[in-house]
């Protein structure tokens, strides 16, 4: 029922389902409120600010102390606390306070050796050696060693309910050994050059031997992270206090961090405006101006996150590539971005993995071409085509993108009936992966990681049925080749070939990559315009790179 997603658990929107009808009006009303706010701000000559350019704060001197209060949308009784798992949206920042990964991603979405491992090296395509950082202590004072890392990796490999489990399919879990206290050898069953990517995913946290998920006692949540868990009430809030023995010099800066669940974006924004929280992550684009008008700042980030449309390449009418190409040519990308996301984002080219180093930016930008679309449809014998497009209010802009597409398709003589489903229906056996044309969204992730999830014959979420299309076998061969290639440049070349195939024949329409917005008080410093996966610069990389001035 739930689509796994690196950053997003659809449950977040699931719990909002009940309120879909009411929240529409509420949102409308808030737009009005925004206008009122703007007027009031003007009257008061208050300087509403935007920090779309890096906030001056990044250059300031960090200041210690304070309780940082952040409001996160989603969550409920399903909230968990586990160093290697997440279910709903607020689980991610919570996890990051206490647990750290072997590798990390820097602000340009490049892998970095800044984590708990000093290096992760492929000895052969089927064996990796992990060298650990020395002198890192867990919250209880125990030193992190190879044993803890082996336990951590085996825990994910052995537990199907953990989000990272599928990524370990190529690993020889039982064969992981230590060569000394700070060196781990990870053998693979088949070649997999994405191991470093996997180890940098935030839900691959390193936990001590015999670690168990939270079940009532905060003191059991022992990690190496910058904060220790003080209290946690699912569906409400968690409090985290500074880890005095943290291994990075000087960090973190806050005394405590309080993470609060919000079920309603309006309440979240109100709390920010009234000063009851210091930051509100993942603002709907429509609320950005209201937040700015009231003197708070908005951080706009490009993250590779995307919302799009999926055409199943094995189902009529999309089993004919001419129809798929026609649909991709129908889209007026800029106009859609303007209408759906207030023009905030980067134009897309139907290929994902936007901030992966291997993103094929040289592919010619696909432009709207109604004449060509019409002639392609005519050639395919699909003039005056009528299709149903299934969508759900799972993330900001998902439903409106579908309706805008329907409008744009009219110009090519195509009738698109938008069917909006409740989110659990959308992911039910009845619809998900069963309908030819539907909305999709994914978090920004490395290209091959996304391929693994949705582009292969053994993928969990084969939305476009790409692997079963006539180009599927060729694509999968290239994928395996990429896994066997540890040389960066060669691997990039293979990935470009894969993207070319998807660009020419694939089933996704990716009109744009929307910006993500976080609202925060002007006193919050240290934020940069990072291309990180999660809001607020990956929550300040676990709330350690940001501070309150």
């Amino acid at each position, binding site marked *: *029922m*739930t689509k796994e997603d690196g950053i997003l658990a659809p*449950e977040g929107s*699931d*719990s*909002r*389902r*009940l*309120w879909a009808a*009411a929240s529409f*009006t*509420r949102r409308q*009303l*808030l737009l009005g*409120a925004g206008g*009122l*706010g703007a007027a*009031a701000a003007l009257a008061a000559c208050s300087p509403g600010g935007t920090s779309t350019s890096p906030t001056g704060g990044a250059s300031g001197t960090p200041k210690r102390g304070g309780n940082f209060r952040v409001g996160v949308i989603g969550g*409920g*009784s*399903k909230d968990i606390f586990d160093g290697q798992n997440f279910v709903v949206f607020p689980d991610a920042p919570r996890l990051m306070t206490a647990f750290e990964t072997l590798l990390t991603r820097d602000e340009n979405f490049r892998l970095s050796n800044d984590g708990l491992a000093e290096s992760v090296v492929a000895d052969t395509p089927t064996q990796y050696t992990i060298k650990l950082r020395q002198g890192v202590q867990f919250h209880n004072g125990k030193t992190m060693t190879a044993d803890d890392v082996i336990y951590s990796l085996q825990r994910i490999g052995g537990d*199907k*309910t953990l989000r990272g489990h599928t990524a370990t399919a190529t690993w020889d879990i039982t064969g992981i050994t230590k060569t000394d206290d700070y060196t781990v050898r990870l053998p693979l069953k088949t070649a997999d050059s994405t191991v470093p990517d996997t180890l940098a995913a935030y839900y691959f946290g390193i936990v001590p031997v015999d670690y168990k998920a939270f079940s009532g006692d905060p003191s059991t949540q022992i990690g190496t992270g910058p904060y220790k868990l003080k*209290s946690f*009430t*699912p*569906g*409400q*809030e968690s409090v985290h206090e500074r880890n005095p023995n943290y291994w990075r010099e000087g960090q973190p800066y806050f005394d405590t961090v309080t993470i*609060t669940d*919000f*079920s*309603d974006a*309006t*309440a*979240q924004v*109100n*709390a920010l*405006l*009234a*000063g*009851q929280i210091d930051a509100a992550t993942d603002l709907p684009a429509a609320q950005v101006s209201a937040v700015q008008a*009231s003197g708070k700042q908005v951080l706009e980030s490009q993250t590779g996150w995307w919302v799009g449309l999926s055409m199943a390449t094995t189902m009529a009418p999309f089993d004919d590539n001419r129809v798929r190409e026609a649909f991709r040519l129908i889209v007026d990308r800029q106009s859609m971005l303007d209408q759906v996301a207030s023009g905030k984002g980067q134009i897309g080219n139907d290929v994902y993995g936007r901030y992966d180093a291997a993103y094929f930016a040289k592919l010619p930008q696909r432009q709207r071409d109604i004449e060509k679309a019409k002639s392609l449809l005519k050639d395919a014998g699909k003039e005056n085509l009528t299709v149903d497009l299934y969508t759900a209010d799972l993330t900001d802009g998902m439903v409106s993108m579908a309706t805008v597409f329907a409008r744009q398709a009219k110009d090519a003589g195509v009738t698109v009936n938008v069917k909006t489903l409740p989110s*659990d229906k959308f992911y039910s056996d009845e619809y998900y992966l069963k309908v030819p044309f539907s909305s999709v969204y994914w978090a920004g992730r490395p290209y091959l990681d996304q391929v693994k999830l949705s582009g292969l014959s053994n993928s*969990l979420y084969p939305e476009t049925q790409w692997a079963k299309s006539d180009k599927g076998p060729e694509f999968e061969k290239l994928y395996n080749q990429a896994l066997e290639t540890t040389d960066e440049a060669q691997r990039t070349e293979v990935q470009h070939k894969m993207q070319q195939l998807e660009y020419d024949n694939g089933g996704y329409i990716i009109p744009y990559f929307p910006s993500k917005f976080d609202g925060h008080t002007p006193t919050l410093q240290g934020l940069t315009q990072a291309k990180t996966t999660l809001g607020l610069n990956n929550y300040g990389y676990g709330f350690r790179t940001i501070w309150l001035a």
Partner: protein
Amino acid sequence: MTWFRHGGIPAFILRRVLLGILVLALVSVLVFVATQALGDPAKALLGRDATPERLAALRQELNLDVSPFEQYLNWAGGLLQGSLGDSLTSQKPVAELLSGRLINSGVLVLCAALVAIPLSIAVGSWAALRREKLVDTISSNLMLVFASLPDFVVAVLLVIFFSTTVFHVLPAISPVPPGQLPWNNPAILVLPTLTLVMTVVPYIARNMRVSMIEVLESDFVEMARLKGLSERIVLVRHALPNAIGPAFQSIALSLAYLAGGIVVVEYAFNYPGIGGALQDAVANHDVPVVQALAMLIAAVYVVVNLMADVATILVTPRLRTRL
């Protein structure tokens, strides 16, 4: 048996209590049937990991492998023994999960009632006294406006006015930190209470006004005035007690409405009460929690109506003597 039918007020209360229990029993059937429509909880819990073996194992664990009739008996039996079962999502007893939230919601409803009831009686009576004068016209129209605004609109307007845009004097959201009680920080209760007050006052006040007007026009009030009693005595001693009887019914309905309508207000203010729990439980197919809350809200309706009927009888001598 004769006592049961003609036993005066005690017998009347007993009859109504028994009737209330019967109503709750019927409601329990409806709630049970309705929650079956949420779908198979086992399937919802397992999601896409639902293999037939795991489904069967979970169904057995949740006692879903018996007939619906037996399931109902198990559940209703548990209710009678005071056991609400375990939540499906968190595996904890429902009572333990909801107790804190129940207190929070109860406090909110109580605050709203304590403000709304005297206020609406006063406003209604005052409008009746100044009938068709400026005060009455203004208050009647104002009441009509408030009555037509949905509660979440009222909430948004109040927040804009008091918290975020015009003034910055009150908290915009009302968090109650776990383990604390709502009155530890009374400021957070103001706007939710005000929202609830503004949604129920128009209804009660308008009823109060009508019944007060009726009483003020009746012969006994005329008589009291002719006797030369002061207007104050006429109002407080003679008019008010007679006018308030019919108002009790609207107060009861309003209180019952508060118990359910609080869902929206809690949502708007991120207040951790039963409303949030109900929303969450429905979204997660957490059947035991939905059932417990539905029964609870039904019980509030029954109890409040019972109290209103008794109160009406007590303040209305002509009804009392008929029993």
